[in-house]
């Protein structure tokens, strides 16, 4: 095993952090964060041990109840991300940031955002929690496997639940994705695509097959890293289509997906 080339590794890690930084800026700028949820008295958590842990301790409720605290924590996330981009080896910063982003994720999901593709916002920080080079390398590998599993399991669920038995399956799901747009009369390019796919179930069915093939193709990553770059591109295309067709944005998950580019960049240096 050849030693890691630190300069390249750190540059690549900075790129991942920069993407995460931009994602956090977009999320906070769009008006979603600790401070903007100030005073929200209604939450609903699932049967989820991690949510229980934080809500049972009253942490999200306390943050939401104090505007100054929410503002301070949101600002801390941005400042710590900048610091970590400058000093990516400072694992203490990463630990604090990981806890803050984990709290943000639990708070957002508890106070009822979609639970789809946001967990990447804290999972991507796992490797930064380690000080030693080799430990960090193993952590990168571990979260890469988890990322692959995440998508494979999604594809397997569709096979398991016989989603392909009915050609109208995806078209029927699409009826709910833009419902508020129709009620408000806010129509445009994306609602036109949505309606087209509802009216043409065979085309929607083909899209679902394509999406499932992309999800299941992540299995390749368990045997080789040679195709990582293409797997990442496939996932980005998948999410772009998701955003367009289903109104589910991947912001909060992009840095996590981009670790596949990182692995590709470092492949010849890491071993």
């Amino acid at each position, binding site marked *: 095993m050849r030693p890691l080339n630190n300069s390249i590794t750190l540059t690549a890690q900075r790129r991942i952090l920069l993407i995460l930084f931009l994602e956090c800026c977009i999320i906070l700028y769009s008006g979603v964060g600790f401070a903007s949820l100030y005073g929200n008295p209604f939450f609903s958590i699932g049967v989820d041990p991690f949510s229980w842990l934080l809500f049972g301790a009253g942490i999200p409720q306390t943050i939401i109840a104090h505007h100054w605290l929410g503002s301070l924590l949101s600002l801390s996330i941005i400042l710590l991300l900048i610091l970590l981009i400058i000093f990516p080896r400072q694992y203490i910063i990463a630990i604090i940031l990981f806890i803050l982003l984990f709290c943000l994720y639990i708070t957002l999901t508890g106070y009822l955002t*979609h639970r789809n593709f946001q967990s990447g916002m804290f999972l991507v920080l796992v490797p930064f929690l380690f000080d030693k080079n080799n430990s960090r390398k193993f952590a990168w590998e571990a979260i890469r496997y988890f990322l692959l599993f995440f998508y494979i399991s999604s594809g397997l669920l569709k096979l398991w639940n016989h989603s392909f038995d009915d050609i109208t399956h995806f078209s029927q799901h699409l009826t709910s994705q833009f*419902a508020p747009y129709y009620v408000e009369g806010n129509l445009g390019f994306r609602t036109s695509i949505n309606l087209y796919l509802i009216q043409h179930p065979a085309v929607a069915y083909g899209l679902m097959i394509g999406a499932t093939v992309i999800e299941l193709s992540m299995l390749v990553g368990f045997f080789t890293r040679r195709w990582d770059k293409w797997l990442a591109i496939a996932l980005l295309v998948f999410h772009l289509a998701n955003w367009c067709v289903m109104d589910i944005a991947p912001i909060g998950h992009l840095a996590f997906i981009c670790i596949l580019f990182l692995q590709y960049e470092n492949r010849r240096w890491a071993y």
Partner: protein
Amino acid sequence: MKRSFLYRLGRYSKAGFVAVIIFIIAYAIVFFKKMDMVLFPYNAMFSVQPAAAWHTDTYAIKLDDSIIHITAFPYWKKDFLEMSLRNYALYRQQGQVLYMHQYLAANSWLPKEISNKLVPQKKEAIKWPGWYLHYAGYKSRGEHRLDIIHYRLNFEQGKPTIEDSSVILTQQINIR
């Protein structure tokens, strides 16, 4: 075998190896029990057929008979406004009961002090419409009438038509 991740990890760190194995086992258990899990939000990933064919339900809030528009907001804010409204509407329709209430009633092993924090307090939760209006940018002071409307859309003809709409909650609200 010797190139596999777990083998190399085991050679490098016993603690790391044990941690990963525990994670995999714990993950498999919650996954097969269909529990929501923070690392893998289990929501069937659109694999299960919708209950009502070619129909969908959605909700909106009207303030003094004018609908509050949310879809022009940036994605995250729109998503928040949409999802929290849907869940609050269902919460009120079901008599201020959430799934978590039922789960906790059936699983009373959690201490009362903790389980009370896992569900919103009923007296506080009904103040949610005020928060929603503020979050959606409504700052017109004074008394207003607020309605939460349930819409049922029908797509059987390929285009959405409102098949049914009903007011599920009406209240006077004072914006300060």
